[in-house]
């Protein structure tokens, strides 16, 4: 047997975990640098949050779509066994979502722990950020499953994943801003709230900002968001919408898997 091939195969051994582990290291390294460079912990938290909100959906969508397409033959073999599709779906989802969510949560927490910044920054704040990363990871994995099941062509599936990420994590804020400008002479609370609810990345961002002092840095929009959603009811509404964002795509993915012709 070719020695190089053997070594390569051994390096591929934990391939299912390699992506999440590298991601955890990358997020931890980025967090470490931001913590060292930022003058105060509030700025560091805002910067790390930005990194998490950009990186998590990207990795979840791209890794998830790629993983599912790569595993298509073995999924087919599993489905040809005397086991229910539901069981195979849960197995696939679990193996994708849990390592990614754990990796991101650990990557967010680690620099605060080793730089002993957990207490000065606020334990609740840092843990909330880790949970937010995990929630986004789970959601993006579920969306990746829907995309991978919908598009049999790997390139097309990855393109749709990237487009979804671009819209949710990058372009959506611009859309919201344009709408806010166009409706400058009218009450914009309701349209902005509706657009906020339509994007889980923004939902998580707002929930995190409401829990920190950073909302004050967002000027008029921050003030409006704080005024409208900063209440207990507002936070409960945000939490409920985010829960729906977890439940509905999960139901959709399970239904797609159940009906899929492999």
């Amino acid at each position, binding site marked *: 047997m070719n020695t190089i091939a053997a070594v390569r*195969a*051994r390096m*591929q051994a934990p391939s299912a975990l390699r992506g999440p582990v590298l991601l955890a290291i990358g997020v931890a390294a980025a967090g470490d640098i931001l913590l060292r460079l930022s003058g105060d912990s509030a700025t560091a938290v805002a910067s790390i949050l930005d990194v998490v909100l950009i990186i998590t959906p990207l990795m979840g969508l791209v890794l998830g779509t790629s993983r599912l397409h790569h595993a298509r*033959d073995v999924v087919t073999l599993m489905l040809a066994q005397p086991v229910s*599709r539901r069981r195979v779906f849960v197995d696939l989802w679990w193996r994708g979502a849990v390592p990614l969510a754990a990796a991101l949560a650990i990557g967010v927490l680690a620099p605060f722990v080793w730089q002993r910044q957990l207490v000065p920054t606020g334990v609740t704040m840092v843990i909330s950020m880790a949970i937010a990363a995990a929630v986004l990871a789970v959601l993006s994995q579920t969306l990746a499953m829907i995309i991978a099941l919908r598009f049999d062509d790997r390139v097309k599936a990855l393109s749709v994943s990237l487009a979804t990420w671009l819209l949710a994590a990058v372009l959506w804020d611009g859309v919201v801003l344009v709408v806010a400008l166009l409706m400058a002479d009218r009450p914009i609370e309701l349209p902005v709230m509706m657009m906020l609810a339509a994007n889980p990345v923004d939902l998580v961002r707002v929930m995190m900002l409401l829990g920190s002092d950073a909302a004050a840095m967002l000027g008029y929009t921050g003030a409006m968001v704080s005024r409208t959603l900063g209440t207990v009811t507002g936070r409960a509404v945000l939490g409920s919408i985010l829960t729906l964002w977890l439940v509905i795509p999960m139901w959709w993915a399970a239904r797609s898997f159940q009906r899929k*012709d492999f």
Partner: protein
Amino acid sequence: MIDFSAVTKSYGKRAVLADLSATVPEARITALVGPNGSGKTTLIKLLLGLARPDGGSITVGGHRIDSDPEYRRVIGWMPQIASFPGHQSGRQLLASLARLRGDDVEPDLSLAEEFDLGDNFDRPLGVLSGGTRQKVNAVIAMAFRPRLLVLDEPTAGLDPLAARVLKDRLARERQAGVTVLITSHVLPELEELADHVLFLSDGRAAWQGDTASLKRRTGAATLERAVAQLLAGPLALEAA
């Protein structure tokens, strides 16, 4: 063993199987043949539950295929040139499948010995040659002592010796009462093995019956020529 009754299946607007009715007899080797796009792969997918028919019914050993996956316990499937996880060995993949199936019986690895797979069964699949991976696929298909074997181009990539080992094994399985459904484009190979033919054309069973009676009907000396006659269309068959 398998009964397809008025099975229909479409992908979008394209009808792949149209009111297909056919029987795969028990303890025989049935060659599933037909031109490209005739519905062979779709038929196998429906049988394995990988796709759902739009209409009609399929029964395996008297049990109608529905949402209960238990009927698949008697099926061993060897897919065509499957790319299983490269980091897993054949033995690990087999163990994963055994766990998934909830089987507590020791898998039958006699085919691995017949192939003389040796250490290759414990090496990562990613470093094995295509032919060796195909041997592993065959071992996995037979490991859980199936009563029905579904084989898609089973000798593709195998060297002549390994192909001989597999064909001998299939002949012994048939003698032991196992039903085999096999697709291959290598018709001389099918002639060697199959005693029953199911010929698909345009999503229908255009011919089903003994290999010998097909050759008699077409006046062809070999299965390859007989199938060529079938491919030429039903009129050619009538003329023969």
